[in-house]
């Protein structure tokens, strides 16, 4: 096996797969943009107490709806104040915590559920696959927003309830993608080899299958995170999500809605930030898919 035309020995001369991945990632502008914005917002959320100029809960009814600085306001409140005189910038900064927390935790919960189901279905096949496929179909038949609205209406809106509801509802895409990926991977020779040397099932799943479907998982995580953030905003806008006085971007849009004709910035500012975050997460997800699956398979 020392022939010069051997494919293995030729590959050693070129860059390693990891280096190629990095090179592709750096050339992908959308991915860089998305990652930068998400990273920035994560930092803002983490250091909210240091960054916020005011207490986001401090009400001052005598300073209601002060205009932001670019509309003739003062630097005391760079983005103005809301209908109760609370600093808009500070609420926006603390609102990033709510959005990212809900996005991350909901994606984590649904990721665990969906991945477990999908991998089990793909690996074992047969009856397990039939059951999981049935559950996925059941879940897909339910309209997410309606079910979330109904459950939140019954249990009452709070951060925990919203996270749990979204986490328990958004696992379908994980299950579908993980099942398909596992089906592909489990027929590979290295899985067969592991089975032949007598490795246990958990070992095969964790060390042979999971690492090879991880790329797909990351892409789904980003998509579902964006999905969860938008759903939280929608629920809060309808008054069924995060409850006041907790700052949430969806709630801020909802509270500004009544004055939309006269003070449109009350709606535009949180709306724009929400738009940028969701766009960035989606660009990041799309970018990751492009970079990790260059041949267009995903």
């Amino acid at each position, binding site marked *: 096996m020392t022939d010069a035309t051997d494919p293995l020995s030729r590959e050693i001369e070129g860059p390693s797969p990891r280096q190629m991945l990095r090179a592709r990632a750096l050339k992908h502008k959308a991915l860089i943009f998305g990652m930068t914005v998400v990273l920035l917002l994560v930092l803002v959320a983490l250091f909210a107490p240091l960054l916020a100029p005011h207490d986001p809960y401090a009400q001052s009814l*005598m300073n209601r709806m002060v205009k932001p600085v670019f509309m003739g306001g003062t630097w005391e409140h760079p983005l103005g104040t809301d209908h109760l005189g609370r600093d808009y910038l500070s609420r926006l900064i603390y609102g990033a915590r709510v959005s990212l927390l809900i996005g991350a935790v909901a994606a984590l919960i649904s990721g665990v559920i969906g991945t477990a189901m999908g991998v089990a279905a793909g690996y074992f096949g047969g009856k397990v696959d039939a059951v999981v496929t049935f559950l996925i179909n059941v879940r897909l038949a339910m309209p997410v927003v309606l079910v979330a609205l109904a459950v939140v209406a019954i249990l009452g809106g709070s951060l925990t309830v919203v996270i749990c509801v979204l986490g328990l509802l958004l696992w379908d895409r994980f299950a579908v993608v993980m099942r398909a990926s596992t089906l592909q991977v489990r027929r590979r020779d290295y899985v067969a080899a592991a089975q032949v040397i007598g490795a246990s099932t958990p070992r095969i799943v964790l060390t042979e299958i999971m690492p090879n479907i991880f790329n797909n998982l990351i892409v789904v995580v980003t998509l579902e995170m964006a999905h969860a953030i938008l759903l939280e905003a929608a629920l809060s806008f309808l008054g069924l999500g995060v409850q006041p*006085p907790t700052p949430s971007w969806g709630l801020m849009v909802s509270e500004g809605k009544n*004055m939309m004709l006269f003070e449109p910035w009350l709606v535009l500012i949180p*709306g724009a930030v929400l738009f940028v975050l969701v766009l960035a997460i989606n660009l990041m997800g799309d970018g990751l898919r492009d970079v990790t699956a260059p041949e267009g398979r995903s």
Partner: protein
Amino acid sequence: MNKRLLDRSALLALTLAATTALPAFADKASGTLNVAFTKELENVDSYFNSSREGVVLQRAVWDGLIYRDPETNEYVGNLAESWEWVDDTTLEFKLREGVTFHNGEAFNADDVVYTVNFVAKEENGVKTQRNVNWMDSAEKVDDYTVRIKLKQKFPAAIEFLSGPVSMYPNEYYAEAGPSGMGLKPVGTGPYKVVDVVPGQHFVLEANENYHDSPKGQPEIEKIDIRTIPDVNTQMAELFSGSLDLIWQVPADQAEKLGEMGQFTVANESTMRVGYLQMDSAGRSGDTPFTDPLVRKAVNYAINRQELVDALLQGSSKVVYTPCFPSQFGCIQDVTEYEYDPEKAKELLAEAGYPDGFSTEFYAYRDRQYAEAIASYLNAVGIDTDFKMLQYSALRELNMDGEVPLSFQTWGSYSINDASAMVSQFFKHGSLDSTRDEEVLEWLNVADSSTDPDERIEYYTKAIQKIAEEAYWAPMFTYNTNYVFSQDVSYTPTADEVLRFVDMSWN
């Protein structure tokens, strides 16, 4: 992904729709006044709805036997020419002759007898029983004389006969019933209904044969009332001229509309009082509100003046009584809790809550006010788990005694007597969160006495104790804004009833 982007753009589209001018349909030239209602009516038949919008239509389409002048509060005959008490529980009316209903049916004693006997019967299911359940029956003396029998002494009978009790045509009502009446209403009033499209609009036309009523003659020929739930849409249509009059406009928007200089903004007080109800009887379990110190702390924590100045605005006032100041018996000489957050914290510490406590806080309307109130409570250490419910849901929870703290309001059905509010909530009914024996006894005397001085004396005792014990935290009175185009001339009254018959074109 496209679907998600769609959600975002829906909001954008809404903004655009709200700012784009719509074609103007009507104005002074066409003779049609376009009005918006925020809520939909369950039934136009005034006995089978309980909303403000229903009262507005009732006053336009039907007449009562008696009319109370909203300016002078004097009672004058409307469908009745005169009336007298035959004894304590019998009223005799001489009816006006020559009045006809919109469908041509003549008005006489049979109509009064039929209407009263129908609505007084509980099985017929009139929505607001309180409006009619004091009447026992009616009997005809001759064609234009009729007697109404009361179940028991009821000093407010005249007030009710001039308000919610209106007269229906007997032959038509017997045939059509409440649902038929709701779709094709027939009355004697200044306006007749020409079109009802539930959920969309009502069209009224001036009644050219309107009798010589104290309500006056209608001047505006045609009124088109559309149901538009969103206040932004209402304003956009006002800008574009497809609406001429909107009402119940929130204070912030009314202020901005006034600044534009193109509309008349009129503000009038209403009898509605906003208050915090605390579970002092401990019905919701082990709650800190059973301690008077905690209840006083809550009272000191609220900056009422700031709420009135910044949020409610208009003709709203700070109140410390569990009733509206103009109501008979609602004395104002009570303990007043001026805003003092430090004192509130001291009282909480004294009560054994140096670090405050946490409680559920319910509200059903005016989310903005509720949030501001919650923020005052948070500032003194009372953490609030805020819950916004529908009115009926909160009422049910409240009846079951599961509400430790809530932001409530009460409009007293515009009845100018303290019994309509104090006695409603402090006589150990299912909505009473206090259950004070002494207050109950005093209110029993005050409600049933016919001696005004004695009534005042006992209401004073009850109201003073309620304030002293801080059973509630009464906060402010409400107001309402009417905004209309400068083509329209109208002076609103303090009873929150929109009177089309008083409107005219400039």
